[in-house]
């Protein structure tokens, strides 16, 4: 694998009390591509996300992001390298409004230190810049009209978008998206994927996406990895994968 891979996962293994969740997973995401990770429920996709994002430490193997070894690095540090993730079930800051949720996700806000927060003039300028950016991002994702709503009082689909907005606030190099279009109607799902494609083309962002709705997903992504029982069993372009007999068997067996 050469340098054009922004994310590389090498021989990662993770077990939970004897149950093997990930078994010798090797994969990578090319810079500036939308890569998909698919597989039946319980195949280990979310576990792999959690290993990449630093929630779990792998038993064996390495994870590299943008030239850094991020194996077992805590999530907050991984974020600062430019890798941001969203969750399968959106995790809102329930006590805060949507706007505050998005504002909080900004990077390097000087007003977030205990000492500097006391003097408003130090952080006011940065805060105004962040506020404008937050409004821009929310406008882009069409959630500006719910900005003042408490984030616990919005629909599940809107939560997905708020999470995406939070992710975009830091101008990440790469996004890890866990089912970005789950619980969303097909029209909006297409809109979300169009928006992601826009991010890829305009901002050069790389993406790794878990998604169950292959019909929609395959219209947008560049490359697909298929997981089954903790292993990568197939990979290739959407066309290659959809013709792969192994993949067909897995999905038929699942049904």
């Amino acid at each position, binding site marked *: 694998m050469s340098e054009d891979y922004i994310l590389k996962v090498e021989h990662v293994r993770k077990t939970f009390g004897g149950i093997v969740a990930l078994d010798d997973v090797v994969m990578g995401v090319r810079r500036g591509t939308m890569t998909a990770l698919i597989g039946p429920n319980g195949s280990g996709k979310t576990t792999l996300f959690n290993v990449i*994002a630093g*929630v779990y430490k792998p038993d064996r193997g390495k994870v590299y992001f943008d030239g850094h070894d991020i194996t077992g690095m*805590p*999530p*907050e540090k991984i*974020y*600062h390298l430019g890798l*941001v*993730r969203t*969750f399968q079930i959106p*995790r*809102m*800051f*329930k*006590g*805060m*409004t949507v*706007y*505050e*949720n998005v*504002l*909080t*996700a900004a*990077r390097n*806000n*000087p*007003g*977030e*230190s*205990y000492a500097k*927060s*006391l003097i*408003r003039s130090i*952080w*006011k300028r940065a*805060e*105004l810049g*962040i*506020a*404008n950016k937050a*409004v821009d991002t929310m*406008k882009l994702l*069409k*959630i*500006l*009209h719910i*900005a*003042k709503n408490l984030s616990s009082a919005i*629909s*599940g*689909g*809107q939560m997905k978008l708020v999470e995406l907005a939070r*992710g975009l*606030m*830091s101008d990440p190099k790469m996004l890890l998206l866990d089912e970005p279009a789950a*619980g*969303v*109607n097909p*029209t*909006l799902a297409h809109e979300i994927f169009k928006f992601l494609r826009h991010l890829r083309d305009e901002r050069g962002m790389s993406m790794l996406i878990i998604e169950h709705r292959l019909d929609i997903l395959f219209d947008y992504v560049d490359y697909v990895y298929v997981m089954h029982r903790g292993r990568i069993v197939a990979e290739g372009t959407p066309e290659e994968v959809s013709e792969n007999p192994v993949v067909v068997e897995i999905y038929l067996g699942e049904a």
Partner: protein
Amino acid sequence: MVDKTGLILGIIVAGIIAAFAAVNVSYTLDLIFFLAFYAIAALSLNLEYGYAGLSNFGKVGFIAVGAYTAGVLSAAYGVPFPLCLIAAAIAAAAVGAFIAIPTVKLREDYLGMSTIIIGEMIRILLRNTPTNSVWGGVFGLRGIKPPFDFITNTFERTIAYVGLSVVLFFFTYILLERWGNSPLGRVLKSIRDDELASKSIGKFTYRYKLLALTLGSALAGLAGALYAFYFLYLNPDTFLPLVTFLIWVMVIIGGMANNAGVVLGTAIVILINRLTQIAKDYIHLPLEPNYFQAMLVGLLIILFLMFRPQGLVPEKPVRTPAWRVLEERAPKEIDYLKEGEGGEENE
């Protein structure tokens, strides 16, 4: 932006205090001191629990550390009063950090169990100090040098001291308001609401929680020092866990992450306490009022958590200049709603 509910209730509380003042001035001074003392402690808990979501059940221990640091420094070494206050805050902060380092990594219940044990540990340690030393063991610590001793009239001196306590209360309040209404306030609330999500957007949650507990303990230590110099005598058995729970009730009744609400909660709890003491002399119930009051505290905790968990004055959004940007831009920018399709989707 003036908070109306808080303001109205505040006026009522001020009215009751004024009524007290009309009846008995020195009693009112005592009342004001207790208000200031408990308000500082409750605000410090608000920083830890209301904002950062840390369940500190050992608050009284940190108050005791502050009180005894100030007391020992003053009684044994004659350290001047202002230095004692600072030393008390630093000592309590140090103990807070020592405890926070292993515990804030853990789940809330571990933190809760650890802090309550540590609070009791501090009290038992103080109880067992040698009675012939300056610490005084169960006999208590005596010989604290009165502050403001250049004022000869004791009444005026009390007024000056209570005035200082009120000033320190305002200092604490402004500090908390500044912290709460800044980007820091948002980060702390994000940790409280979902720590993993907060980490995922790059917040160093461990450091924030560590500092919240340390700074909260420093404020508790300051309150303790104020207590020491007000009574000029300390006894380990005044620092019972019940004090911690009183402070918790203040925060829960008032409303977490709302400083005005917490101050209001403090006033309500203190006034209930004082009024039951007064009522004892006039009404004869087949109950011991002190015990009954503690039962009431327990009942209030349960009832508030069940029926009004947000407290009397609910939490408000973090106020920063960012809201002005939203107010100005949002009306102009929401054009996508007019397209007819809308941003709504079914679940």
